[in-house]
């Protein structure tokens, strides 16, 4: 099931990349239109395609042949296909996630845990999986901050 899946499993799913490529093509064509200051009608004239074809691209639903994709890309001044090893993609993805976590941990503790700010006190221990917190001493909707050191976690309340 998807919640048991890790990011690596998802990055190996065709549906994930199919959606990504459709939306990337939408972004490339939109950028081209903005750069050239043209509307859909003008674009369809330049590409010598129907307005319906342009609409499909701009709705993120391009699913034509590889030949059509190449023609479209070249017409808007780009080349298709960025072929990378899946291992490299996964590695870059993991590194991005790690750098994001590092940035979060560099912040002040109250920012780190701002998402749990509004929980009722009884849930706090369970959420953080730190049963040593005496949740009965915390009032509802009290802002709670924690020290970064997990061994010395203490609730500051009031």
């Amino acid at each position, binding site marked *: 099931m998807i919640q048991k899946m890790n990011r690596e499993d998802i990055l190996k799913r065709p*549906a994930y990349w199919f959606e*990504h490529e459709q939306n990337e093509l*939408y972004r490339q064509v939109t950028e081209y239109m903005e750069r050239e200051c043209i509307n859909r009608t003008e674009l369809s004239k330049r590409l010598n395609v129907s307005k319906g074809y342009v609409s499909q691209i701009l*709705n*993120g639903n391009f699913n034509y042949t590889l030949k059509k994709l190449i023609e479209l890309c070249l017409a808007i001044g780009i080349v298709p296909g960025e072929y990378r090893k899946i291992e490299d993609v996964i590695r870059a993805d993991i590194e991005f*996630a790690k750098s994001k976590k590092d940035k979060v941990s560099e912040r002040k503790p109250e920012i780190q845990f701002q998402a749990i700010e509004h929980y009722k006190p009884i849930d706090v221990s369970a959420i953080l999986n730190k049963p040593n917190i005496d949740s009965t001493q915390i009032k509802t909707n009290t802002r709670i901050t924690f020290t970064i050191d997990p061994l010395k976690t203490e609730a500051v309340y009031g």
Partner: protein
Amino acid sequence: MSIFVLDEINNVNGDITFYRLIEDGHCYWNEFCIALENEGTYYEQVFTLTSQMNDKAKLKSLPEKKHKSFATHVKGVSGFEFRTKDLRAYGINAIEGNIIIFAGKKANQPRDEVKFRSIVRRYIDSKNE
């Protein structure tokens, strides 16, 4: 009054953090995914939704047909929806990041929209309690 918890969706990796909302132990997003997996029919489209979320998390634009703002009918709370051919995922923009509140099939959209707004109202009320 319901108890709400936000749980980070680790499978979405970008500058914006995505959370799933848990109400009294029920995660509507997870339950939706499990139901789809058991049915089998639209399960692949969950990965399509995940891809859309990931693009948004990376601050990339999406076609309006796939991602659009959505009225929550709660003052000061802006909502959004992700769309695939047969599925919808509804969420709100919050200080913490993007919160996926609810998801459903396109066929049940009118009913799901009511549910979504009802959950949002309860969630915001709980924060204001």
